[in-house]
């Protein structure tokens, strides 16, 4: 029993790691641009398909491929900002609808390029850390956990310590006041979009060998990410990370002891409960909401 708990805990830790990468990106984009990016799950998918294309098919080194995935998906994010979110700045619902349209385009493009069947990504490393017979942690999962910790720490340092980070936080708090201080809203929006999309891309690229890669994989990711950002308080980066950990543990444990559908229902009910009781989320403040 203890072994099962320990193993489930490790699985939850891994789920928390990639969920927080996705959710933090979503929150960052919402914070700076005020738009909900429905296509965020598909950016995650694009990261995974970069691995399918370059690593599985072209046999390029995995580390290089992950770097390219970040660049590629980040560039997609900048493209979204330029083509949709900037012209629709004063129309949040329009931005949301446009991102749904973009989601359908990405899904169709991938279906046409790779087919709708599940892609198999060969494991990068077969190594497994064995704590005991039944408590095992594949190294690939450890990599995801470590990458999440490093990247989120780097993001935190960037936001709190650099001038760009200050500018980003300033325009998230008050766009016009930030513009009056000489901060380029266009530039900060593009940086936020690159980082937000890039985080989704790296999460997709790192988890690609571990999950089933298919054109519709973004669906469950975006639902989980919504739950996480609502529970954490929309607009709060720290809240998103903490909520990702809470959600991942609840979801993984319920999946292990009941089943996946029940876990989804529990997660959604948790979100509904937070929305009813404290719509600003567990860590959001009233004025940010």
């Amino acid at each position: 029993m203890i072994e099962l708990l320990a193993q489930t805990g490790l699985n939850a830790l891994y789920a928390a790691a990639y969920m927080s990468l996705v959710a933090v990106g979503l929150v960052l984009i919402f914070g700076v641009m005020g738009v909900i990016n429905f296509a965020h799950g598909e950016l995650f998918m694009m990261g995974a398909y970069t691995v399918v294309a370059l690593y599985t098919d072209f046999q390029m080194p995995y580390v290089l491929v992950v770097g390219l995935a970040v660049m590629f998906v980040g560039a997609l994010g900048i493209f979204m900002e330029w083509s949709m979110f900037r012209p629709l700045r004063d129309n949040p619902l329009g931005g949301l609808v446009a991102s749904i349209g973009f989601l359908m385009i990405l899904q169709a493009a991938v279906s046409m390029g790779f087919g709708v069947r599940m892609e198999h990504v060969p494991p990068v490393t077969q190594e497994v850390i064995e704590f005991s017979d039944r408590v095992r942690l594949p190294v690939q999962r450890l990599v995801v956990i470590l990458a999440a910790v490093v990247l989120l720490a780097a993001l935190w340092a960037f936001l709190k310590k650099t001038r760009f980070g200050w500018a980003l936080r300033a325009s998230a708090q008050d766009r016009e006041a930030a513009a009056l201080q000489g901060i380029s809203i266009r530039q900060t929006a593009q940086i936020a979009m690159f980082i937000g999309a890039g985080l989704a891309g790296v999460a997709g690229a790192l988890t690609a060998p571990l999950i089933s890669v298919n054109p519709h994989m973004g669906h469950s990711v975006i639902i989980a990410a919504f739950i996480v950002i609502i529970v954490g308080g929309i607009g709060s980066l720290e809240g998103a990370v903490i909520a990702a950990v809470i959600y991942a543990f609840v979801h993984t444990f319920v999946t292990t002891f009941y089943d996946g559908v029940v876990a989804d229902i529990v997660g959604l009910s948790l979100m509904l409960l937070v929305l009813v009781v404290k719509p600003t989320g567990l860590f959001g403040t009233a004025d940010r909401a």
Partner: protein
Amino acid sequence: MPRSLIHVLAWPLLGVFLIALPHVLSFSQQEILAYLVFNVLLVASYRLLTLTGEWSLGHVVIMGVGAYGSALYTKHFGVPVPVSMLLGAGTAALIAMVLSYPLFRMKGFYFLIGSFAAGEIIRLLWKRYREPFGGPKGLKRIDPMPDIDIGIWSFDFFEPVSYYYFALAVVAVCLWIMWRIERSPVGLTFHAVHWQDNLAESAGVNVRAYRTLAFVIASGFAGLSGALMAHYIGTINPTSFDVEQMVFVLTWAIVGGTATFYGPILGCVVLTILNEIVLREMGFEQMRPMIYGLVMILSVLFLPKGLESIVQRLVGRKPAPGALAEPTRMEDRA
């Protein structure tokens, strides 16, 4: 031709056109036409909901409640089919009533996400419980409409044309009722709740009660649309009502525009023709979602007031009083 004559002739002409239409179409196009009628009811009921300013992502699931409800009433209680449809619609309205208690504590973006969560929970319950919902495979062999003989006319409802006439009559009545509701004092209050909720509240309007009322009425009609669909195709499953279907409804409403009664209907008809007739028959099967997505993006970018704004320009009419530039003022309240 004098303007008044057009007005007198418009409705009979439309009626004749809709009655004659199936006879010039192929069998598969007739089936699409029947679907189009269900969807027109769905999207028109969606607009009724958006009148108070709230955009729901759970509307298709509510439609599914009507479909599952009606199918289960015939299956387990032997209720005859047309009656079960009304019961299904009533069930959808009832579920909406229950959901309104948590959901209308939220507004704007939170309502959007909250309605999505509530809908997904219902959908996952259908998926989880084999009894009575049939699990992931859903319900099969749903009772069809019984045949009707009225004197010289006999209707066999396995024929798409017969079912189309039946659905057309039902939907026409529903649209008329919704139109009357919108023009009634209640409907005007819906507008007030949307555009001036603080003012309406200070004038003694119970804003939340009116939001709930719009939600419940819209859900009833959506449920009826689902019931019409269920007894036509005979099989429903949780995937028939997933968020992808919701995206289509949202697109119809946005592309058509929601400032007028006919806007969403126009969006639904135009996009369905584009989707089914043009794209499918031209052999762009795989590219269809991509083109659909592109149409969505282009229409929010370049036609933010929807197709209805083109019609208004052609007819030369001023937009309705409630119709302002942006589709919603979500930013004020989010």
